[in-house]
């Protein structure tokens, strides 16, 4: 996650509202840029933990204040008009975040950002780092285990009274980690995974705008123009103030309607009315969406409900094995019609040969054969039963080491190439799109930690590192 922000002089803008621009484009970095990040080896078994409610992505955010008098359709490129941009930084960066190696990823992205800004100069880059519990000083820890997860509840070394807790709770309503980073005077903030909303909500929250409106606006703006009639049109502007917020798409021909804006609460959200965030939840049950004109929508009535205890979500991942893939395509009509039987026969013969040659049983590896064109997407849930023109057979082998996965793949290779449906026929040969047929795809990672962590102070598990470039 990359967050870049320009926090302008704040003393003179309090209570005048906050204007932000958000877009949903994708940035695909060039190979040179990727090399520039220096994605070297990282400790493959490390598990990071972070605050985010969604699967990991690397996103670039630029947050800033835009004068309300700015004309529309200028795309925010005018000198001195900061905009919110937002993008996924391409697959390799996503993979870094997927490894959950938050701190490693943040440092790499920080280096990348500093290099990118080197020519311009005069930027202050702030890294917001999540601190794994074991890296915090022992005096700050009150170690406990939560459930089956080896999780430490972090507490500050102060013993807070109930009264102090309530005071802190009130303070926290206007404080969060991204805001702390902006307070340093940051031009660019690079953070690990955060919730989509936390990055956009930070600036209006720290300027004292309506908390419910700030979080709700952040959710609506998380994917830019996805909340408008033309989702591909990119940039929207959100104006947040002391009561509510207004959403306006900036592209010609794009419109926001009460329907398109309110419908965005459905997106990637299991409950369309409640959104849990660090420190509380957003409740939009009573939100009112009103068209200002045929383009803009005004939203009021959003409620931010602070939680009694401040929590951040912890997600962790670990290596779950190494994979080798094979792909064969089958176009012969008789084989396509009998593809399930053919694949099942291959699976049992392959398992037998792996046992004979390598002495491995089902507990030592996994080999799955998915039939593309028949059931690869839905598996046992598939309800359609139409014969396709061709079928792909994708072999997915997962084993404790890459070498073992590859060797098991090599044993699968001749089956996919030559296995006959019956003994009495000539040896068939099927299409391999690649050579060599075994594709090593490296480690796979699976979630191993899904918890919340209680903090006395939102910054207890985080640190800021400031770099002037």
């Amino acid at each position: 996650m990359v967050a870049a922000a320009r926090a302008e002089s704040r003393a003179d803008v309090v209570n005048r509202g906050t204007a932000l621009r958000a877009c949903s484009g994708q940035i695909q970095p060039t190979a040179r840029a990727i090399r520039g990040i220096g994605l070297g080896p990282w400790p493959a078994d490390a598990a990071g933990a972070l605050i985010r409610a969604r699967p990991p992505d690397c996103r670039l955010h630029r947050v800033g204040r835009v004068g309300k008098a700015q004309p529309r359709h200028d795309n925010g490129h005018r000198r001195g008009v900061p905009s919110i941009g937002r993008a996924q930084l391409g697959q390799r960066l996503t993979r870094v975040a997927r490894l959950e190696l938050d701190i490693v990823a943040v440092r790499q992205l920080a280096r990348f950002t500093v290099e990118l800004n080197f020519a311009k100069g005069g930027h202050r880059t702030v890294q917001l780092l999540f601190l794994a519990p074991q890296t915090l000083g022992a005096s700050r820890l009150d170690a406990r285990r939560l459930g089956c997860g080896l999780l430490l509840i972090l507490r500050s070394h102060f013993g807070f009274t109930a009264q102090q807790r309530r005071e802190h709770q009130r303070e926290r309503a206007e404080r969060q980690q991204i805001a702390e980073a902006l307070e340093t005077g940051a031009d660019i903030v690079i953070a690990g995974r955060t919730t989509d909303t936390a990055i956009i909500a930070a600036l209006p929250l720290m300027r004292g705008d309506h908390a419910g409106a700030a979080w709700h606006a952040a959710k609506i703006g998380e994917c830019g123009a996805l909340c408008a009639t033309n989702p591909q049109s990119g940039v929207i502007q959100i104006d947040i103030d002391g009561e509510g917020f207004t959403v306006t798409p900036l592209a010609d021909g794009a419109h926001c309607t009460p329907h398109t804006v309110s419908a965005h609460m459905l997106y990637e959200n299991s409950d369309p009315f409640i959104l849990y965030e660090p420190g509380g939840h957003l409740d939009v049950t009573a939100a009112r969406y009103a068209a200002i004109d045929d383009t803009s929508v005004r939203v009021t009535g959003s409620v931010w409900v602070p939680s009694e205890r401040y929590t951040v979500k912890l997600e962790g991942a670990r290596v779950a094995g190494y994979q080798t893939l094979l792909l064969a395509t089958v176009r012969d009509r008789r084989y396509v019609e009998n593809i399930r039987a053919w694949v099942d026969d291959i699976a049992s013969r392959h398992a037998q040969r792996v046992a004979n040659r390598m002495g491995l049983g089902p507990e030592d590896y996994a080999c799955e054969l998915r039939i593309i064109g028949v059931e690869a997407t839905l598996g046992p849930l598939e309800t359609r039963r139409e014969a396709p023109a061709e079928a792909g057979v994708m072999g997915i082998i997962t084993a404790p080491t890459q070498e073992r996965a590859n060797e098991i793949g090599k044993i699968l290779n001749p089956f996919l190439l030559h296995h006959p449906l019956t003994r009495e026929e000539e040896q068939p040969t099927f299409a391999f799109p690649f050579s060599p047929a075994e594709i090593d795809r490296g480690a796979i990672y699976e979630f191993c930690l899904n918890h919340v962590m209680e903090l006395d102070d939102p910054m207890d598990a985080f640190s800021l590192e400031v770099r002037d470039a």
Partner: protein
Amino acid sequence: MPELGSIVEKVRSKNAGPFWLTVDIFCGSPEVYARVVNGLSSERVARLFRVEEATLKRFDIAVLHVVKFSLPRPAIQGTAHDRDMHGAGWAPLLAEVEIN
């Protein structure tokens, strides 16, 4: 009987975090919305996705003409058995059910 996908504006599915899947049916009009609310039982959806009905969350949102279902993902995102990292491929399963 027509398929659900042929009478509504859109059926889409997507991850809601790594552990949940959410499916939105945009009905487009009060008439179609009423037809979907009455014609598509939670029990039937649970059976389609092979989850316990008790774990299925259902939201009938009249103001948007939307019926929304959320359910535990068939496989946790990213695991070896996950067939669809972003969860968008499950929507056609629901779009192809027949409805009165």
